[in-house]
């Protein structure tokens, strides 16, 4: 006796579901459209602005930050490895590239470099003991001297030093040449004067 009743009930339920499903879908669509219209309306924008500007929003934010929400949020960030997932996405690379290529970073860096605070910070960093210790450690490190050796032996550096040496030798030789030619003229003048001879046809240089 039970079996026919269950069968009838199941059939009735299936028919009811089949009839109500389109109705529910239509109602959901209408509700979503109504919500979109509300969200797009100027009134809702004004309302949000008013709420955000009101003391209520401030109190709510303070309450949220003072409550257990922050701890829970941090806990969930760790639990669901949000940072790892974000870093593994291309989003980070894209964002980094956009920041590096965009003019905003340059503006921010210029503003930071121009600011007296940064200047003060750099000044105090230079005068700090930390810098002295860093320099001492750097000078004691073997890697630094390996690097210096590599640079000193590089073809570009040796070529530059050779060029400097050659130009210095040229400069010295040029100076000696000029002085010896002056001495030529001076000695010749004295000899001619002593022997009461006429001066050389071209005074000084004795050019032909």
């Amino acid at each position, binding site marked *: 006796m039970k079996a026919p009743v269950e069968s009838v009930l199941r059939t009735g339920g299936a028919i009811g579901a089949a009839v109500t499903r389109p109705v529910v879908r239509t109602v959901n669509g209408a509700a979503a459209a109504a919500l979109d219209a509300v969200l797009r309306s100027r009134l809702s924008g004004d309302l949000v602005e008013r709420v955000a500007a009101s003391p209520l929003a401030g109190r709510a934010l303070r309450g949220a930050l003072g409550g257990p929400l922050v701890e829970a949020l941090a806990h969930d960030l760790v639990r669901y490895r949000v940072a790892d997932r974000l870093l593994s996405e291309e989003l980070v690379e894209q964002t980094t590239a956009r920041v590096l290529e965009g003019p905003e970073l340059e503006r921010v860096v210029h503003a930071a470099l121009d600011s007296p605070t940064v200047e003060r910070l750099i000044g105090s960093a230079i005068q700090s003991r930390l810098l002295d210790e860093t320099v001492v450690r750097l000078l004691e490190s073997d890697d630094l001297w390996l690097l210096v050796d590599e640079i000193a032996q590089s073809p570009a550096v040796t070529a530059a030093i050779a060029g400097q040496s050659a130009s210095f030798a040229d400069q010295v030789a040029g100076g000696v040449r000029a002085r*010896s030619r002056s*001495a*030529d*003229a001076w000695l010749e003048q004295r000899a*001619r004067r002593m022997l009461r001879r006429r001066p050389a*046809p071209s005074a000084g240089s004795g*050019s*032909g």
Partner: protein
Amino acid sequence: MSLAAHRGQGVVRPAAAVGATEAVAPPAVYVGLVTRAIAFAVDAALVQLVAIAVAGTLALILSVVSLPDQLDGVLVVLGSVAYGLWLVGYFVVFWSVAGQTPGNRLFQIRVCRAVDGAAPGPGAAVLRFLGLILAALPLFAGFVPILLDNRRRGVHDMLAGTVVVQAPAADP
């Protein structure tokens, strides 16, 4: 002053201009005693340095090789001849091939024939070297004409028919 030589002698052109037209030949500048003496001192230092290095090396080699004492005199004669040849050869080869010894090059001067400005031949170079010795023998009196001659020639230049002119290095 023009290159037309004094006292009826020929014309000197810088070697680079030999064979070029008259219009592009710049006037030669004859070089005086002091510059030539310093350049010669540089050459003498070079010659002696090489001779000392070679003699020192040979002496070291001979010190470990036992030779009869009778050969000492022969070795001295051979060494002297070799030194003489090296000394003469150094100047003769450089003068006749390039017109410049290394010392001349350092001081940017050049030995050339008074007639045409070309480098002196081997014969003239040997004659010039002998003239150099002759000029030095009477207390260097043979170099005094360099102070008085219009082309700044010494006895050795007159003997070999050469002059010494400035030879500025070519721009790289």
